[in-house]
């Protein structure tokens, strides 16, 4: 019995260590020099629900941080991250750890982290926190909030989808009917109907952000139902993109640029560029404002960019209309009515 207990402990410890270095908590360039703010580099820590290479939500933040770093220079801007923090308790622990290590800004990149942040932030009045996607700063002086007007890119994608569809049946694979995903899907639908009021938009929420197999089957279902253009949001859509490519059905992406996954069928992706908002936060923090404001990424402020796939063979039929739509949304001549 003793031997077994000993071995069990060993196995558990080993597996925990391995899962720890696999899923969450991978750290990049972080010489942990604690210097007074203002003198050393600006230090950011971010906690993300999925992997930095998910081609979706988490990757959009990681890529934006890289762009900020490129702009400011590695000697002036450092960041570390914990990825795969789908367990909110683990994320909360990581947020607290980062805060106590004296980072200038700790970002909780997921709306599920809100209540943890509300508890942690008051304990670290010198540290600035940010979370999204939301508008709620909880009235705390050291919490920023950020969100994306994902209905705008959804609308543009929808306009293109409607133009390119020949069957006039378009399928949407969504995760859970809430937040950013719902905004995107509703905007997409509105975009399709603005071009073709009699088109059919079939929406399927699969109830999960991670079930790749079900997302893939949802795409197959859309295709059997006659869809010749598909879109979808969240990190499990990689399964659906695969099916789109196999069946030669067009795909519109969102959150990150998904062209690399299926260059033959991806037409365009709405990509989140958080760097504008990050820069604003950094400027505010340096001048002593640690929070209390909320930001919105949209087409007009460059927080959302429609990235076309230059190799798409059908793009030319929709690009001009897409560009006019983008301009219209930017100057306010086009407004989106959400249900």
């Amino acid at each position: 019995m003793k031997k077994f207990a000993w071995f069990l402990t060993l196995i558990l410890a080993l597996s925990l260590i391995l899962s720890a270095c696999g899923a969450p908590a991978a750290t990049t360039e972080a010489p942990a020099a604690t210097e007074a703010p203002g003198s050393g580099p600006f230090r950011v820590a971010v906690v993300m629900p999925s992997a930095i290479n998910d081609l979706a939500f988490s990757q959009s933040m990681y890529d934006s941080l890289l762009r900020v770093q490129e702009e400011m220079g590695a000697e002036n801007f450092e960041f570390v991250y914990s990825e795969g923090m789908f367990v909110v308790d683990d994320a909360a622990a990581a947020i607290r750890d980062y805060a106590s290590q004296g980072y200038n800004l700790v970002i909780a990149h997921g709306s599920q982290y809100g209540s943890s942040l509300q508890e942690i932030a008051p304990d670290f009045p010198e540290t600035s926190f940010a979370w999204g996607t939301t508008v709620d700063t909880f009235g705390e002086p050291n919490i920023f909030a950020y969100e994306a007007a994902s209905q705008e890119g959804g609308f543009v994608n929808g306009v293109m989808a409607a133009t390119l569809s020949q069957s006039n049946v378009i399928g949407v694979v969504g995760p859970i009917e809430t937040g950013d995903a719902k905004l995107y899907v509703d905007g997409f639908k509105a975009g399709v109907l603005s071009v073709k009021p009699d088109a059919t938009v079939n929406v399927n929420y699969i109830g999960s952000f991670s079930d790749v197999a079900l997302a893939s089957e949802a795409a197959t279902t859309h295709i059997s139902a006659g869809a010749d253009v598909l879109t979808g949001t969240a990190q499990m859509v990689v399964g659906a993109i695969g099916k789109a490519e196999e069946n030669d059905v067009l795909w519109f992406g969102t959150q990150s640029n998904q062209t690399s996954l299926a260059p033959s069928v991806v037409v365009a992706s709405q990509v989140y560029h958080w760097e504008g908002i990050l820069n604003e936060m950094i400027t505010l923090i340096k001048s002593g404002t640690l929070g209390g404001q909320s930001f919105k990424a949209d087409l007009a402020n460059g927080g959302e960019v429609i990235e076309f796939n230059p190799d798409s063979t059908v793009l030319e039929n929709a690009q001009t209309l897409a560009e006019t739509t983008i301009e219209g949304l930017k100057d306010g001549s086009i407004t989106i009515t959400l249900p």
Partner: protein
Amino acid sequence: MISDLFSVTVLIGILASGIRLATPYLYAAIGETFGQRSGVLNLGVEGQMLLGAFAAFYVAFTTGNLWLGVLTAMTVGALMGLAMAYVTVNLNAEQGISGIGFFLFGLGMSDLLFQKMLGTVETVKGFPEIYIPGLSDIPGIGEIFFSQNLLVYGAYLLVPIAWFVLNKTTLGLKIRSVGENPDAADSLGVSVARIRYFTIILGGTLSGIAGASLSIALLNVFQQNLTSGLGFIAVALVYFGAWRPVGVLAGALLFSMINSLQLWIQVLGINIPSDIAVMMPYVLTILVLVATVSRVRAPSALTKPFEREN
């Protein structure tokens, strides 16, 4: 709108996707059935599937050889099974806990390897749907049964084979006796350890194929936590199927068919909230489980380590 559900296209769609969705469950759950019939509960199936899925994907991605991918997945699964067998048979560890340990190992390890060896989500050309002259052309039937990929057929072929091995061979008799009464089996000269090693390694091998069926046949991608709980559902299906291959088949098909039904319900715009729709497979599975499972008994020695009395 409800009447749309009964159109031919929809029915064919539901059946064809149900059959596809059931594939990974079948491999994993049939493998688990062998283990449990010999008295070993392996909760590490999900971890074995994840490592199998990554191994198959990586090999197929780098070499372009799908069969080599399947073979690697089988080997990785078998090695995971070997480790599980050592821990539960030789060291008499608590099966549930060590299974969870192996699950966490597989989850972390597959993600670590994915990050280090691939770095980003890639696609691979997986097993194609095969065309059987004649059969594939039958309207409806052809689309449902005869236009799937090879690993799908393999999963269904496994069911009668598993039934035959368990019920009609000496090996099956030994497996069952080790699971029911290891002391008696031992006194008759059956090596409890050897039988359990065999079933756990077989289970791991099949879980490896289950993972490969996702990453290089059905989805053709690999992503962190690709299986997202499939392996645990497979373990539940073994209980659901009352430790019989045919029961497992029934459970896997029921669960998958209802899942594809709910996909269609949403696509057809039938006015049910999506949250209710996605709950359907789970709720119905629990209801059937409650209604049927109380009548069947688990293998008596399930989860009990065997220690010979001297």
